[in-house]
């Protein structure tokens, strides 16, 4: 997988550079009346990454680390405050709403909750044909063909069995397949999958991930957002670990998992439960919880919880760089590596 990606030349499908997205912190009536200064949450605080066609990048991190906001910024569903987003070579950071509509055809998102992401009043057929209608693509017959093809692509075969069903008549896995199919009818180049399997039963998860795997091999760029390192390790080409709005480590999935450089990644990996009861390792449990992104610690944002922090970590905000004992393309943001 990694080799195939390397062979894939041309500009990256998605190029994010120094992305910053922040939200105002509600001041409440009292705060506003007292004219307290507006405070901001830096949900994404300078994130850069690249995604090629035919590649799956997993954005991994705990809730509140900014991975979902990153995805929403890339999709231009929220406006970012700094940085640039280039899609297929074109800068889309400041695209107007008219041009965005055309862009939406080419980038699609799959949501976490398959029970919520389909309109309960729409039959599968209508859910699948709607994106085409929105963009005025094809005749009625063509739209129907597209819908059937998309169902087949997601393993719901034969399509006739599903076209006339309502979401509540489908299992969770089937709904997620329909949601994926609905994003495929537009033949997108980029697919963002926001925790695509975390709400599904274990026995059907692999099937959904295999579909994504298959789409990747057909040339789609896939950005998978997940908190599950095991899934990322098994299915993604590359992993980017986020902490408090920053990518703290990035590299080929195997490298990140087998040779983690950043102490946060090391801690995360150590607490992932293993299937084999004989592999009971001592987890390196970090105390406390991720700090509030309103009050980001100075210097390295991880230093208050870091087991190997030194006084310098309080002053230096480390950049992503390649540690000495890491392979090419494996980066970490830690001065101690």
């Amino acid at each position: 997988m990694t080799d195939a990606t390397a062979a894939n030349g041309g500009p990256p499908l998605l190029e994010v550079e120094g992305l910053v997205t922040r939200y105002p912190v509600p001041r409440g009536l009292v705060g506003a009346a007292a004219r307290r200064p507006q405070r901001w949450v830096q949900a994404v605080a300078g994130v850069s990454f690249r995604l090629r066609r035919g590649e799956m990048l997993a954005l991994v991190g705990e809730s509140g680390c900014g991975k979902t906001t990153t995805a929403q910024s890339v999709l231009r569903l929220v406006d970012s405050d700094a940085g640039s987003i280039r899609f297929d070579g074109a800068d889309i950071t400041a695209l107007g709403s008219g041009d965005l509509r055309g862009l939406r055809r080419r980038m699609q998102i799959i949501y976490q909750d398959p029970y919520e992401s389909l309109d309960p009043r729409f039959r599968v057929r209508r859910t699948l044909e709607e994106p085409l209608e929105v963009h005025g693509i094809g005749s009625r017959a063509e739209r129907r063909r597209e819908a059937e093809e998309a169902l087949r692509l997601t393993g719901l075969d034969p399509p006739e069995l599903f076209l006339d069903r309502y979401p509540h008549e489908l299992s969770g896995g089937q709904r997620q397949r329909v949601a994926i199919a609905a994003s495929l009818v537009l033949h997108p180049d980029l697919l963002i999958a926001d925790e695509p399997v975390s709400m599904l039963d274990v026995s059907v998860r692999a099937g959904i991930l295999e579909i994504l795997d298959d789409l990747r091999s057909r040339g789609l760029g896939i950005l998978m957002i997940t908190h599950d390192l095991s899934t990322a390790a098994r299915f993604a080409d590359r992993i980017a670990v986020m902490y408090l709005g920053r990518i703290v480590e990035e590299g080929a999935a195997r490298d990140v998992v087998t040779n983690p450089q950043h102490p946060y990644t090391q801690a995360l990996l150590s607490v992932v439960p293993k299937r084999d009861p004989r592999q009971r390792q001592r987890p390196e449990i970090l105390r406390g919880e991720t700090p509030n992104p309103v009050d980001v610690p100075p210097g390295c944002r991880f230093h208050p919880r870091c087991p190997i922090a030194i006084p310098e970590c309080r002053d230096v905000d480390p950049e992503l760089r390649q540690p000495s004992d890491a392979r090419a393309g494996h980066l970490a943001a830690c001065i101690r590596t």
Partner: protein
Amino acid sequence: MSLLEVHDLHVWFDLARGGELHAVQGVDLGLDAGERFGLVGESGCGKTTTILALMGLLPPSASVSGRVLLDGENVLARGERSVAPHRWRDVAMVFQGAMNAFNPVKRVGEQIAEPMELHGIAEGRDARRQVGELLERVGIPAERAQRFPHEFSGGMRQRAAIAMALACKPKVLLADEPTTALDVMVQAQILELLVALADDFGLTLVLVTHDLPIVAQVCERAAVMYAGEIVESGPTDALFHSPRHPYTRLLFAATPDLYGTEEVASIPGAPPRLDRAIVGCPFRPRCDSAFGRCVDDRPALKPVAAAQAAACHLNDVPQEVPA
């Protein structure tokens, strides 16, 4: 004799549209004092209903049969009347999503003290002191008892929910998906806490989850449920290394492992409906090694190895026959 024994437990739910759902179809369990036991299965397999039945926490639409012996006494003998005195006192529970089930307008400390007062264990100043001790024990500073739930983080509320379950010093702690909505790091903290509490208090911990690796890491023994029944039970080590039911094997194979290199494969199909009678083996349609007998003969849970039992006909035929 075990601390908690369950014999042939059945639970049916009346359905609004008529008919009934046979949610638990004959579960047998034996739990020893101080052991950590895992109850694993996918959504709808009856694992939550099983432990709710142990607590007698079922709605009026439910009917129950079977025996639940706590220290030899059948707590289900007279329904609600016989189970109520034991609830929370002997068997307590951390509900699924318990961390979101606190009353938002009452202080956390008062809510933890409530079961103590209900069971006449402690009141007033004494109750407050015990609440403080409990909170400290689950890793929350005692003075936080005066705070409101929204002032706690998700992980802290889950700790408080555990403290509430321990309020009456129960013998058995049932934890239903205690870490599902939590981040991995907080999940690790909570699991560490549950193990420590079980050891310190000599608690019997029943961990109900869909997450096999959690059970593998936390529990000594486990039971795998499918379609309302236990299809395999035994030491977690044996379940992973020598499963005797295809469902157990396939479930492990469907779970990605951090360092695993083998193919992760989903199990085709879905569990059977429980509002119809099940003929033959409930797993047969999804099984990769089903044979003729599985069609109409429902396998019973039988011992297959030391402390291991499975409900699969494959265990009756010589090893070389099925592929």
